[in-house]
Each structure stands twice: as C-alpha cells, then as structure tokens.
C-alpha cells in the first residue's frame, strides 16, 4: 500500500516532503484499519485533477465497529487501541483535505487528499 501511494505521489510530482507526509498519513490510517477495523478493509488510490491542480486521493474503508464519538477520536492523545492516539488527528495534519464518515456497527470511511 505504502509503495503504491509513494509511486503515484512521485508520478504526479509531489515534493519529497509532501510524498512523505502523504505516505505517513496513509500508514497511520492503514494501521487504524488493522487495529480497529476488524483487520479487513479497502484502500483506493486515485489521481485527481481540479483545474490546473493535480492531487492524490487515498480512500480507506473498513467494515469495523465504526467510531462512536468522532470528535473525541480526532483529538490528539485520544486512543482506544493502546496507541499514542495520533492516528486520525495526526493524519489530518499531514494532508490538505480530510473527511471521515462513520456509522457505529457498520464501518468507517476516511478520504485524504494531498494537492501538488
């Protein structure tokens, strides 16, 4: 997953720092799926164009228990899995756009975008 994100990020010409931020955010979110999403999930990587801008979008979907309190889960230091609790909030800081949709009992979908 990381290698694919890195390769696509290089393709669209993201700087090394931006590549690293995007791949790190993706890594945080992929670990989230493994830790909380029941270990099963999908990752879609897509190149976006908006006018003159190019960006890379990565979508994470799992069929896990969902997030009961999203506001709390986005806070730094919050953790339910014994981690550092930097997952969601930390990943958000590393990208330009960040969206979460979650339904308790059904799963979670996170979309991140890093524009060039």
């Amino acid at each position: 997953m990381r290698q694919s994100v890195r390769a696509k990020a290089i393709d669209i010409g993201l700087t090394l720092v931006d590549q690293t931020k995007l791949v790190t955010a993706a890594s945080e979110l992929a670990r989230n799926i493994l830790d909380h999403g029941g270990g099963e999930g999908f990752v879609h990587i897509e190149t976006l164009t908006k006018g003159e801008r190019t960006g890379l979008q990565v979508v994470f979907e799992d069929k896990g228990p969902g997030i009961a309190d999203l506001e709390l889960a986005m806070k730094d230091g919050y953790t339910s899995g014994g981690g550092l609790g930097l997952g969601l909030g930390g990943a958000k800081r590393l990208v330009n756009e960040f969206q979460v949709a979650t339904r308790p009992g059904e799963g979670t979908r996170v979309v991140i975008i890093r524009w060039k």
Partner: protein
Amino acid sequence: MERIPILKLGEFLLVTIQVDMHDRLAMTLQNDVTDMIVKTGARGVMIDISMLDVVDSFIGRMLGSMASMARILDAETVVVGMQPAVAITLVELGLSLTGVRTALNVDKGMDLLKASIARKEFDSGTVSW
C-alpha cells in the same frame, strides 16, 4: 522468522532498520535488543533509521519504548540518520520523540553515546581522578 540483525561494536549495539516494521517484527526486535544488552553488558544502543523513508506513530512509539527498556537495563540509546522529510513529517504528525536521543549519523551517535556513558560513570563515581 524475519529478524532485524543486531551488531555488537565494542560496548555498543548497532541496529539498522531497513525493512518496514510491523507489530511482530517490532516485538521480536525489542526482545532481541534487551536480551543482547543483558548478555553482552552493552552500555549503549544505536538505532540507524537512515533507510526508513516513513516513520509513523507506531515506529515512533517503538523507538521510544526501546529507549526506555534500554535505559532500565543501564544502556543509553541514540537514534541516528533520520531523513529530513521524516523529521518534518514527525513533528507535524505530533510526535516529538521525547526521551529519545538523536544524532545525525553513526559517527555523531557514537560520540554522543561515549560522552553520555563517560558522564554517567563520572557522576556515579566509578571514574576516579
């Protein structure tokens, strides 16, 4: 089983992380490093991460806990070779690696380890002048 090699260099241990870390590998490494510290009486552990182009909070936490374990076993830890893009990303992620000493490269890491061991011996009175 996949393993990260640990090299003994005098009274130090050198660990070079070149592969993507996952939970089991991280646990194995923690076990191996703590075993080696006890077995060899190593005074310092140097962890080279120059080959890592991504350090996420999992790896950051692993580095922090290795440093704490080593400290309890009377060994100093220094993390060397972090790539600049990784440093920028870590800070923005919110991970400042508190409690983990860092140096730019293996040479400087070695100097740092030697200096802090010398200081420790001086403070504890093992070195007489």
